[in-house]
């Protein structure tokens, strides 16, 4: 049997590097060891998500059009059913960093295509990702590079590439933005097929040499006839770049940082950790896997239990997986796809190119109601297979149980969640007011699942 600390640590790893895991899985991982589990996450051998089954049952999700909802449903299906959790979590990570939104792109199919690139290359080379993005139809349209012409440069992509995708404010000049933009002139889209009357057809990236500015550029101190790829190479040589990506990784996987625009003002919460990760990035030529390995195996990661407010996606997917409420194609999938949005994170439709504000900004009194209810609706539903297993876990020990024991076991299976004395007192009082606990049977299931629901409503449960 794994120790309580081992289980807490492994659960922490699986919440951060995935979307949680069942207690049986956690026990098994504890048996094989922490580092072995990290390697399995980094080198997944599970089968990819069964896309064909999704498209057969939900054809609309394969080519979502102007509406984001079918694409959101498709991605939710991937996240809820994947057997390669870190791969999918990294996909979400890059969507946070390279936030691209359907409110403008209006062709969700292409944002899904970008997401598929994050899925296949998310643990590979950051260099390849940047180059892929520069030629990604959704990104080109999102940041107006199709309006970036030789004689009329549009700086939107050039600016965001430096400000939000690689260096951060303060590490380049306005002149650099202009020169960078010039280098990407002519990186555009081929004429688009209209959406009417047969639905969307794929967009195509094209390079138009006649619209490209071939003249000399001076960018971040270097001068030459740079094109877009050269610009990306120069960006990667900047020390700021590795630090910027390292801080993003820290904020997403380890502990909540201030919002991105404050990063050139406020020091990282743990400068040594960011420094260490940045160094590994550079040493490995911006391969992502080595820095993930170092991060997950680091003390600062292992000590960061419950240092993050769970994002809406983490709440929704963690709950769906934990309770077994969505295990494959299902008519309710399209409605579920909207839930992260109701909780405050409209995937595939971030509020802006800056992505989402994280940490405490996930929570306001409107979103908290939705968040608590989403979880409590499910953990109190004893018809769900995952909830039945959780109830069994709580009740599988001995013939009697005090209210405190019941609460402890519920907190354990739901996280483990560490709660304050005050919270604990209220949880225990709630159980006590129901009278003596009879193990097994329907009333036990009901009281246990009610306790789950009340735990889902605690402040502590909002962290993970």
């Amino acid at each position, binding site marked *: 049997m794994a120790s309580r600390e081992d289980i807490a640590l492994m659960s922490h790893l699986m919440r951060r590097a995935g979307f949680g895991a069942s207690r049986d899985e956690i026990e098994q991982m504890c048996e094989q060891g922490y580092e072995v589990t990290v390697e399995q996450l980094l080198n997944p051998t599970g089968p990819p998500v069964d896309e064909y089954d999704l*498209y*057969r049952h939900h*054809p*609309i999700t394969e080519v979502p059009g102007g509406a984001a909802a079918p694409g959101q449903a498709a991605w939710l299906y991937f996240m809820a059913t994947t057997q390669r959790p870190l791969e999918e979590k990294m996909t979400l990570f890059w969507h946070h960093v390279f936030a691209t939104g359907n409110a403008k792109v209006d062709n969700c199919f292409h944002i899904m295509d970008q997401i598929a690139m994050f899925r296949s290359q998310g643990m590979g080379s950051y260099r390849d990702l940047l180059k892929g993005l520069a030629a990604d139809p959704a990104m080109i349209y999102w940041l107006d590079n199709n309006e970036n012409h030789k004689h009329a440069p549009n700086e939107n992509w050039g600016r965001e590439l430096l400000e939000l995708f690689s260096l951060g404010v303060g590490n380049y000049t306005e002149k650099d933005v202009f020169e960078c933009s010039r280098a990407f002139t002519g990186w555009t889209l081929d004429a688009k097929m209209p959406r*009417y*009357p*047969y*639905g969307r057809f794929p967009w195509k990236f094209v390079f138009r040499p006649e619209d490209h500015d071939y003249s000399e550029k001076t960018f971040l101190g270097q001068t030459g006839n740079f094109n877009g790829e050269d610009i990306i190479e120069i960006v990667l040589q900047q020390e700021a770049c590795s630090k910027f990506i390292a801080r993003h990784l820290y904020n997403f996987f380890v502990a909540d940082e201030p919002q991105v625009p404050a990063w050139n003002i406020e020091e990282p919460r743990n400068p040594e950790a960011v420094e260490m990760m940045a160094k590994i990035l550079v040493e490995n030529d911006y391969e992502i896997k080595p820095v993930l390995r170092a991060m997950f195996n680091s003390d600062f990661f292992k000590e960061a239990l419950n240092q993050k407010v769970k994002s809406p996606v983490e709440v929704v997917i963690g709950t769906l997986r934990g309770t077994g409420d969505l295990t494959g194609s299902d*008519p309710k*999938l399209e409605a579920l796809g909207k839930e992260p949005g109701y909780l405050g994170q409209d995937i595939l439709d971030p509020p802006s190119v800056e992505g989402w504000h994280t940490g405490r900004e996930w929570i306001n009194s409107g979103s908290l109601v939705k968040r608590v209810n989403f979880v409590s609706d499910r953990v109190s539903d004893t018809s769900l297979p995952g909830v039945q297993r959780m109830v069994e876990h709580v009740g599988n020990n001995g013939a009697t149980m005090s209210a405190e024991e019941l609460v402890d076991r519920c907190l354990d299976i739901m996280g483990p969640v560490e709660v304050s004395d005050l919270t604990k007192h209220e949880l225990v009082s709630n159980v006590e007011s129901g009278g003596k606990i009879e193990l097994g049977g329907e009333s036990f299931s009901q009281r246990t699942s009610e306790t789950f629901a009340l735990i889902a409503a605690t402040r502590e449960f909002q962290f993970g």
Partner: protein
Amino acid sequence: MLTTTVAGRTWNFKKAVGRNAAAGNGFTQPYDVALGPEGVIYVLSRGAEGAGGVVAPNKRIGKVTMDDQFLGDFGHSEFTWPVALAVDSEGNLFCSDEHLNIIASYNEDGERIGEWGEVGSDEGQLNGPNGIAFDADDNLYVVDSGNGRVQKFTKDGSFLATFGSAGSDEGQFDKPWGITVDSSGDLFVADWGNDRVQKFSAGGTHLMTFGSAAGGELNHPSSVAVDSEGDVYVADWGNKRIQIYEPDGNVITSLHGDAVEFSAWAAEVINANPDAQKAYRRVQDRTQIGLLDRPVGIAIDADDNLIITDSTRGRLQVYTKEKDYMDPQFNL
């Protein structure tokens, strides 16, 4: 290619019918097509749950004709996951729903006249009914997809027979989808998960297998149809094409879709839309407009017109088979 010719056979692209539309004269993810009396073509729109809930109005059965008449639609908000259609000898229409586990029936006026189906895995119970097809005696074969078998019922739902089980051996199925009965009463089942079509006698004896995943010959086929000469048409869903086989199982050719010209209903949209007209003029290579994108259902009418539901594109593509065609022996 508007005309696809191989020795002795030619398929001419005839036309497209329909457009993508959630209501009225269009289709939403058309999954099957069936032929009613007097030239009526029934088209089943699978639809989506997002637009109006699990039982959404865009899930419906449209009544159209080969010459682009829209005769109305029915079945709105009656289905969750409708899959397939079949017409009995009296002209009544049957429709399967793989989530509700029912077979619903309608008269020619589109009025619901019956519904049967019980969920489960015992004989006569259903777990995800997919393709349906009548034999000459008005018995209904139902692809019981979740149970990996084919069951035979009277059209009122009395159980008659079952064959097959889940698996990948001969005579077994992995999430099978479409089914057809040929003129001699043999059955063809699109064995979706096993990338093949299997042929059975009426009693369920395995006779032969068409295709496999090898070399990409078939990728998750969704349905199958047989013409008056015994040629076999497989909707090669994963490869987005129709594979045509000789009766002995050799591949003859493939159809990839040719609906480059707008259907009549599609043209109405373009004609009213100056933006779309300009945008289409800017597109240099228009071939992709015409390509099949997830073909699902196939029907063959008495004139050997091959009617294919082109589901992502919300339309039907129609080909006509020209028989006994010989390539002229001269240079054109």
